[in-house]
């Protein structure tokens, strides 16, 4: 079959002039990209393969697998023979997962060194670890023969004290590992084996041995580089949910860390003491019953130990009291309420054994209220602010366990405290050069007017620096400390670049600005030498906002960026070395760019892209870049070393809902703005009298819910909700009842119903990558969809789909036959720019706007393209409009108020009718939803909002 060095390949018939290792290049290339349809896999060839045969042809260094010892969740354990000088039998654990990339293999190599250093009498020795020739990761361990700790205790009928003393060995092992920076992540009875040695007494000497330390982390990393989640890719439960902490299940926004192991220890202790698991949950449960499991992990406390002791009065007496309190503290839902370490748990158990008072306390009243509030959000909304504050402070005290990637300093805040804690919105913080004070803009105690304020510490009342009736925003403290630059503006009317003396309050106007920018995010910054200010502007004649440098002393101006049409530059930040990071938004996504400058303060070459899908750049003193991004299912701050060999590594830091942050000049403090908010859907329904009634709450949640999409039949709504932690796809009836989660991973967006209402298409975005899915509404079956196209709507007959996509940065509207893949099938309907295209339920008209947001005309064109576009309404507020069969819903700003406060109206037969003045601002870029007949409309409203500042101290860099 092998072709000669030249000639015709007998396999494909092409002429071969040179071979690759004697093989035909064309055939080899096809083999490299061929899928399963070309190759018969061993299983489809009808072979039944035992685990040992499955290792055929592979090699594991000096270890030769001999026979199977056992199967575990993560792989198969073999008895293996080590050859060479040290000939001996070992346990060889071959993990199920492959390594997908070389980089993960490298991190595995680092991890294995850590594990090999973990010597403890109660931890199974890991002699070696490696990756086989076929890239299977494996561990070589001592052979342990013993029963899981629970079975052992049953078999030998251990007393409570004996069980506790065995358990203390486990705590000691876990504590030891934690102090070496290793978290187990999968502690459960089957990972704690007890070996017995003859003692000469009635009961043998028992030794607990913890296995599989750190392997869960490696397994998670091997999957796709993301942290372990409760669900595997095929929607099954990963791991053993009964022992998994809420943060590991992804239910609360805290990194899994040592306290996650404390939780698992608590679950194990519970079972060890009363003989029943704390949470009786089967492994590998299908996604259908997932809600029950999630709810249990998140909301339910297991029954008290003594209640599970059955008829045994003596056991009940022993378990009641201290042990219940200790177990309950270890099993706290909130990590900050658990024991801070396995050692602390052990210490309390020891105190109990020695009949001394334990440290754990039964839950206090406030805490019980907050737990109750989480389970009963409707009733709890009536509760006072005090209870809310409790919940917030619990989350603030979250844990950060992050050893970071090699070579980068971990960004682990020592503390994080509310800094401003004022009503309304405080943002754009800027440190004074000495880091002692922070200037920011605030819309004031009554949220009427933006001014600049200065505060000198957490909780200190802020000093008002400006009081102009125009909006004063985006302060930046000069490097010398003698001035603060800011923008004085009216949104949509340009502004003025101002400087103010922070002591005397003397103001000076430097420049007229012509940008139409709303100015509410960082718009300017000082150069490190304090001589120049970089500011956003659009001089007359320029089509777009660009970055401009202004000399503070002479007024000299340089153009730094002049983005082409369709791009928008914003949020400039000078690096300590005088580069400028900024955000460039192309209408689809934003990325952080870096612009280098020459000594003469002119742009040196074009800007280069530093990070995809990121905003709010800021700098650390060492030149690391800080940015804000939606990665890993929430908005967070990240850090990257631009200059390292692998320049785009990012590190998670801080909690959810952080918007923007800056670091003090000494690198020891970080101040960030954090969103406190709740977006909820409200419902307006047509009453028999012909008027709309509302707003009625759709669902009584305290988490964000938005993007309502009503099914073609008008009986169900698909929407995005944060109920399960992370933005997931949910469905419910139009009144909010019968809510069900449909997505397996957080990060769902771009939700569309199929024309027959049987499926929902959505996009799942995590860690910057997008994958497209459809989900069967009845069965919950998830199907991966091709990456193209992302549909925006369908004709009722299901034959055509509406697609909006950018062509050379200009968004346009297209129609494609369903099922078609690729560009050629696309028919352009509207010459761009056209935004937010929406097809009416009859599939006749496509409505769209020509502005991405704000006031503009509403246009429409026939979906079959048979006539030129026409104006449907002279003025709407983009993107909030919704065509239905009977009514065309749209919004307009209320009176002369802030544009986000809207009036909802509809047009019917040429007549415009008001539905209602919306009681609070319509939320962000969220869409309206409604039944196809136009009798119900769902609106996402910002029912609670605010942005406060939080201050963190950072460890020395």
């Amino acid at each position, binding site marked *: *079959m092998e072709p000669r060095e030249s000639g015709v390949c007998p396999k494909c018939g092409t002429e071969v002039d040179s071979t690759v290792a004697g*093989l035909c290049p064309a055939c080899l290339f096809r083999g*490299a990209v061929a899928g399963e349809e070309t190759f018969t896999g*061993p299983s489809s060839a009808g072979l039944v393969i035992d685990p040992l045969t499955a290792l055929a042809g592979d090699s594991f260094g000096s270890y030769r697998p001999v026979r199977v010892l056992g199967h575990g969740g993560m792989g198969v354990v073999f008895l293996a023979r080590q050859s060479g000088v040290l000939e001996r039998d070992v346990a060889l654990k071959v993990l199920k997962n492959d390594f997908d990339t070389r980089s993960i293999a490298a991190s595995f190599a680092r991890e294995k060194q850590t594990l090999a250093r973990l010597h403890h009498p109660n931890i199974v020795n890991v002699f070696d670890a490696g990756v086989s020739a076929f890239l299977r990761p494996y561990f070589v361990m001592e052979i342990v023969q013993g029963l899981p700790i629970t079975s052992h205790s049953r078999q030998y009928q251990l007393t409570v004290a004996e069980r506790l003393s065995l358990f203390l060995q486990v705590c000691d092992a876990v504590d030891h590992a934690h102090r070496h920076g290793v978290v187990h992540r999968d502690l459960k009875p089957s990972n704690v084996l007890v070996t017995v040695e003859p003692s000469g007494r009635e009961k043998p000497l028992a030794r607990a041995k913890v296995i599989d330390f750190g392997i869960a982390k490696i397994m998670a990393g091997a999957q796709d580089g993301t942290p372990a989640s409760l669900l595997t890719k095929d929607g099954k439960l990963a791991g053993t949910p009964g022992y998994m902490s809420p943060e590991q299940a992804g239910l609360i926004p805290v990194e899994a860390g040592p306290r996650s192991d404390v939780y698992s220890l608590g679950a194990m202790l519970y079972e060890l003491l009363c003989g029943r698991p704390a949470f009786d949950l089967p492994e590998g449960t299908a996604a259908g019953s997932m809600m029950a499991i999630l709810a249990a992990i998140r909301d339910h406390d297991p029954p008290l130990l003594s209640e599970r002791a059955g008829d045994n009065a003596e056991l009940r007496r022993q378990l009641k009291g201290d042990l219940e309190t200790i177990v309950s503290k270890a099993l706290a839902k909130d990590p900050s309420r658990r024991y801070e370490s396995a050692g602390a748990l052990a210490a309390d158990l020891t105190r109990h054994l020695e009949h001394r008072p334990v440290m754990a306390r039964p839950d206090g009243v406030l805490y019980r209220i907050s737990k109750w509030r989480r389970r009963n959000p409707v009733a709890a909304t009536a509760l006072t602010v005090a209870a809310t504050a409790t919940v917030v402070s619990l989350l603030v005290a979250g844990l950060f366990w992050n050893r970071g990637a090699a070579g980068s300093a971990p960004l682990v805040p020592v503390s994080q405290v509310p800094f401003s804690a004022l009503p309304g919105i405080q943002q754009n913080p800027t440190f004074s050069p000495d880091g002692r004070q922070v200037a920011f803009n605030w819309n004031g105690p009554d949220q009427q007017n933006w001014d600049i304020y200065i505060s000198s510490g957490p909780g200190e009342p802020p000093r008002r620096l400006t009081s102009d009736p125009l909006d004063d925003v985006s302060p930046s403290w000069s490097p010398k400390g003698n001035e603060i630059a800011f923008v004085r503006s009216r949104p949509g009317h340009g502004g003025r670049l101002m400087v103010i003396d922070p002591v005397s309050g003397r103001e000076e106007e430097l420049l007229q600005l012509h940008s139409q920018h709303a100015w509410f995010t960082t718009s300017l910054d000082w150069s490190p030498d304090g001589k120049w200010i970089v500011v956003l502007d659009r001089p007359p004649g320029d089509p777009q906002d660009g970055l401009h440098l202004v000399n503070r002393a002479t007024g000299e101006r340089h153009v730094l960026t002049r983005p082409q049409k369709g791009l928008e530059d914003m949020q400039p930040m000078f690096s300590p070395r005088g580069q400028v990071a900024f955000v460039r938004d192309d209408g689809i996504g934003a990325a952080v760019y870096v612009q280098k400058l020459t000594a003469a303060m002119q742009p040196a070459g074009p800007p280069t892209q530093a990070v995809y899908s990121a905003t709010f750049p800021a700098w650390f003193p060492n030149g690391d870049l800080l940015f804000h991004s939606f990665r890993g299912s929430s908005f967070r701050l990240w850090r990257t070393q631009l200059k390292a060999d692998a320049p785009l590594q990012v590190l998670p830091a801080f909690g959810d809902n952080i918007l923007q942050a800056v670091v003090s000049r000494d690198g020891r403090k970080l101040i960030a703005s954090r969103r406190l908010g709740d977006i909820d859907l409200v419902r307006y329904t047509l009453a028999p009298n012909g008027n709309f009634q509302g707003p009625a709450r759709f669902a009584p949640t305290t988490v964000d819910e938005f993007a309502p999409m009503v099914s073609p039949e008008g009986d169900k709504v698909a929407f995005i909700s944060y109920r399960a932690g992370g933005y997931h796809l949910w469905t419910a009836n139009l009144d909010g009842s019968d809510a069900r989660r449909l997505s397996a991973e957080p990060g769902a967006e771009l939700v569309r119903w199929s024309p027959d209402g049987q499926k929902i298409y959505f996009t799942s975005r995590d860690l910057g990558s997008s994958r497209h899915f459809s989900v069967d509404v009845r069965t919950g079956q998830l199907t991966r969809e091709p990456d193209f196209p992302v549909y925006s709507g369908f004709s009722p007959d299901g034959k055509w789909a509406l697609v909006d996509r950018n062509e050379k940065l200009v968004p346009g509207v297209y129609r494609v036959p369903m099922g078609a893949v690729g560009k050629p099938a696309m028919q352009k309907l509207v010459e761009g720019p056209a935004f937010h295209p929406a097809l009416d339920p009859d599939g006749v008209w496509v409505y769209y706007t020509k502005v991405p947001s704000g006031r503009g005309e509403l246009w429409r064109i026939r979906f079959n393209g048979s006539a030129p576009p026409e104006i449907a309404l002279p003025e709407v507020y983009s993107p909030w409009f919704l065509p239905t069969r009977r009514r065309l819903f749209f919004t307009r700003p209320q009176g002369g108020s802030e544009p986000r406060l809207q009036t909802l109206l509809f047009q019917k037969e040429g007549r415009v009718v008001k539905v209602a003045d919306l009681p609070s601002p319509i939320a962000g870029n969220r869409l309206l939803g409604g039944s196809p007949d136009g009798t119900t409309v769902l609106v996402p409203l910002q029912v609670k909002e605010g942005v406060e500042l939080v201050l963190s101290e950072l460890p020395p860099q």
Partner: protein
Amino acid sequence: MPQGSHARSEFPTTRWSIVLAAGDWEPGQDDGAAATRAALEWLCERYWQPLYLYTCRRCFNPELGRDLTQEFIATVLERNWLHRADPHRGRFRAFLLTSLKRFLADRYDHDQAQKRGGGQTAIDLACSGSEDRLQREFADQTTPELLYERQWAITLLERVIEGLREHFQGTGGLAQFDALKPFLMGDDQDYRGTAAALDMSEGAVRIAVHRLRKLFQRRFREEIAETVATPEEAEEEIRYLLNVLSQSPAR
């Protein structure tokens, strides 16, 4: 930046994306420049062969072709040719060919100028692009561009196969790899005979082939990825090169 807006997809950092990202480093930041240079060197060294073939075909002179290729690579590494790379589009293969053409044209201009000034000429007229006469003499229908692209695909495969050979040399499975590698082209191979030759069961051979194929396909994609910056480009590149290879080399 509205929440939930579309995101660009993220792609692992590849050597080509390092090169593209490092359009310009500050003069003081030697480490950044060094990383870029190392990435570029790695790429150029790996894909030397297609460059050489192209240059030879343009000049019809292997000796001169070798010198010019070396000179070109040195120029790419020393001067900042990267400014000429459009960071939004373009794969390494295309960038390199464009750069090489530009380099040869510059060299030609330069030599013409020298000639007018009475200096020595190093490059034959043939390299200028007007090589009709010589081309007829060589009577070869393959364009230099097709030759370059074909050799590119072959070099790519060679790098992958070489990498696998080294890998199995390290794990002691080289003989098995050499026996199994024809299976990388497709399933229509002699499983039974191979099993007998390797003293394995047929099932075991199927398993080993399955694993080897997965490894090969992964390494292949990694190799492609090094020369592009986005997943879309990787897919395009694969389609493009497959098309190039499927055409018979006209001789």
